[in-house]
C-alpha cells in the first residue's frame, strides 16, 4: 500500500454520511458482497444459537439407525454410529469459528505490536524482525503448523497457537509498511510536538491508519485459518473424536466415500467450503468499501 492521501479517519470525520452512503452504494452495486454479509450472519447465528436449536444431540449414538441416507427426519443423514450429521455440522460451527477467530485475533495483536514497533523505531529492530519473518515464510506454512503442533503437543489451544504463528508475518509486514510511511508525516510530528509520548503517538495517531487494510486482511485470513485448522484436524491433530468439527468429520466420512455413503463427508466439507467462501467474498467486498481504488 503506497497511498499518500489523507488518512481515512480524517476523511471519514469530514464526511461521516459519505462513508455510510458509499457502503450502501457498494452493497447495492455488488449484491455478492451483501450476500456474503448475510452468510456471515448465518454462520455467527449457527455458532451462537446452533447447539440450542439442533434437533438431535450431536454425540448421541444410535446403532440401529446408522448410515441412513438424508431424509426428512435426518436432513443430512446419519453417520456410522447413527449420529445425526446435520446436528453435528451445525454444532461444529462454534468450534471452527472459535479456533479461527482466536488464531486470527492472536496474530492480529502480536503482528500489530511487532510491526508497529519495528516500523516506528526502524534500525536493527526492523532488520531483526524482517529476518525473523523471512525465516517463518521460508517454511511451507501448513507444514510449519504441523511441526509446531507436533512439538508443543496435540491440543486445540496449540492448533490455535500454530495457526496464529504462521499468520503473524502477514500482519506484521502490513502494519510495518503502514507505520513506516507515516513516521515522518505532518500529523505525527504535530502530535509529538503537542507533547504526546512515542507510545501514544504510535498507538492512537499512526496505528489507526493501518486498520482499514488490516480489516481486509483479517477477513481473508479468517477463511484461511479455518482451512488450516480443518486441515490439521483432518490429519489427526488437535480436535479428537467424537467432538464435532468439520475437518475431522470429513476425515471420518472419507472412509465411507468409496462404498457410496457420500453424505458423511459431503455436508461438513460443504459447510467448511461455504464458510471459507463467505470470508473470502467478504474480504473482497470490504476492500471495495475501504479502498475503492484497489478493486480488481
Amino acid at each position, binding site marked *: 500500500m503506497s497511498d499518500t492521501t489523507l488518512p481515512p479517519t480524517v476523511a471519514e470525520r469530514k464526511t461521516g454520511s459519505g462513508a455510510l452512503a458509499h457502503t450502501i452504494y457498494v452493497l447495492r452495486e455488488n449484491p455478492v458482497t451483501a450476500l456474503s454479509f448475510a452468510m456471515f450472519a448465518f454462520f455467527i447465528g449457527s455458532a451462537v444459537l446452533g447447539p440450542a436449536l439442533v434437533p438431535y444431540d450431536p454425540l448421541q449414538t444410535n446403532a440401529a439407525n446408522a448410515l441412513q441416507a438424508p431424509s426428512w427426519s435426518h436432513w443430512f443423514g446419519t453417520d456410522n454410529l447413527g449420529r445425526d450429521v446435520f446436528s453435528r455440522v451445525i454444532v461444529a460451527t462454534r468450534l471452527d469459528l472459535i479456533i479461527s477467530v482466536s488464531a486470527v485475533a492472536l496474530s492480529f495483536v502480536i503482528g500489530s505490536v511487532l510491526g508497529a514497533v519495528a516500523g516506528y523505531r526502524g534500525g536493527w529492530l526492523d532488520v531483526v524482525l524482517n*529476518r525473523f519473518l523471512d525465516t517463518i515464510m521460508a517454511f511451507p506454512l501448513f507444514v510449519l503448523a*504441523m511441526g*509446531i503442533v507436533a512439538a*508443543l503437543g496435540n491440543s486445540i489451544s496449540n492448533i490455535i497457537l500454530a495457526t496464529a504463528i504462521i499468520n503473524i508475518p502477514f500482519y506484521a509486514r502490513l502494519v510495518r509498511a503502514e507505520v513506516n510511511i507515516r513516521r515522518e508525516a505532518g500529523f505525527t510530528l504535530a502530535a509529538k510536538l503537542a507533547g504526546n509520548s512515542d507510545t501514544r503517538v504510535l498507538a492512537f495517531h499512526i496505528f489507526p491508519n493501518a486498520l482499514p487494510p488490516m480489516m481486509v486482511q483479517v477477513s481473508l485470513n479468517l477463511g484461511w485459518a479455518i482451512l488450516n485448522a480443518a486441515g490439521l484436524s483432518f*490429519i489427526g491433530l488437535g480436535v479428537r473424536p467424537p467432538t464435532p468439527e468439520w475437518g475431522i468429520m470429513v476425515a471420518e466420512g*472419507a472412509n465411507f466415500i468409496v462404498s457410496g455413503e457420500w453424505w458423511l463427508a459431503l455436508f461438513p*466439507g460443504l459447510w467448511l467450503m461455504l464458510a471459507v467462501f463467505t470470508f473470502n467474498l467478504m474480504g473482497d467486498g470490504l476492500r471495495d468499501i475501504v479502498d475503492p481504488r484497489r478493486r480488481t
Partner: protein
Amino acid sequence: MARRSSATLNRILQAIPVLIGVVVISFILTRALPGDPAVQFAGAAATPESIEEVRRSLGLDKPLPEQFLIYVGDLVQGDLGQSVSTGRPVATELASRLPASLELTLSALILSCLIAVPLGVLAATRPGTWIDQLCRILVTAGVSLPTFFTGIVLIYVFYYLLGIAPSPLGRLDFIYLDPPRITGFFLIDAAIAGDLETWFGALKQLVLPATTLALFTLAPIARMTRAAMLSALAADYVRTARAAGLGPGMVLYGYAFRNALLPVVTTLGMVFSFVLGANVLVEKVFAWPGIGSYAVEALVVSDYAAVQGFVLAMALLFVILNLLIDLSYSLIDPRFGTSSK
C-alpha cells in the same frame, strides 16, 4: 555478462541466512520447547530407562549451544535421527519417498500452469466476456476449496459413481510391478523401461490426486496472470508496439506476455508454499506413499524425529524451489543484474 553472473551468485548467497534461520527454527522445534524432548523422541511406549538412554544418546543432558552444534553436525552428515516406529533412519525413509511426492506435486503444478496461464491471458484480453466471468468464478471458488474435500468429491464421482478412476490407493495398482527404480518417478522409470502398460497404470493413479492439487493452485496463478496481463496490455510499450504496426500476435506474446510473466513467476513462490502444505492432505486422501503421508503416519504414532525431519526437509525443499524461481528470473528478464542498487 559478468554483472549477470555476480547477481546470480549474490542471489545464491542470500539463501544462506534463510537456511541458517530454517535450521535454527527446526532446532527450536525439536529441542528448546517446553516439555521433555527425550520423552517425545523415545516414543509412546517408553520406559524411564529408555528415556534416560535417549537423553544421553541425543546429548540432551548437555547445554543448549552444544546441543545445537551437535544437531548441525548431524545435519551436515545427513543424519535426521532414527524413526521410532520403523527403526530406520529418517533421512533414508524421506529420500526413498521424496520422488513420489515430487512426481505428484510437479505434475499438478504443470497441469495447473497449462490451464491457468492461458485462462488468465484469455480473461485479460477479453474482459467482460464469459471467459472473464469463468476465470473470476474459478479464482474465487478455487481458493475456498479445502483440498482434502475436493479429493474426496473427485473420488466419489470418478471412482464410485462413474467407475473410470482406479481405486485411490497409492501410486500403482497391485496388478502391476513397480518399474525398475532409476529416478523414482514412476512415469519416467516406466518410460525408460519401455513398459507402456505400467506407464498407463501409473498415469491413471496420478490423474485424480494431481487434478486435486492442480484445482487448488489454479486460482492464484490465474488471478495473477490476469492482473499482470491487464497491466501489461495497458502499458505504453504495448501502445507503441501497436502504433508501430506490429501484428496482434506479436504484441500479445512478444511484448505483453513476456512482461506479464515476471509477476506470475513471483507468485509461483507463494504457490509452492501452498502446494507443499496441500500435498500432505492430498497424499493422505489418496494413500499416496510420499513424504507427506509418512509424516501423517508418524504423527499418529507420535514418532517425533520423523515429523521434525519431515518439517526440515520440506523447508529445505521450499528454500531450494524459491531459489530456482529467482534464478529463472535471470532467464526471463534480460534486465536481471543490470539494475544496480
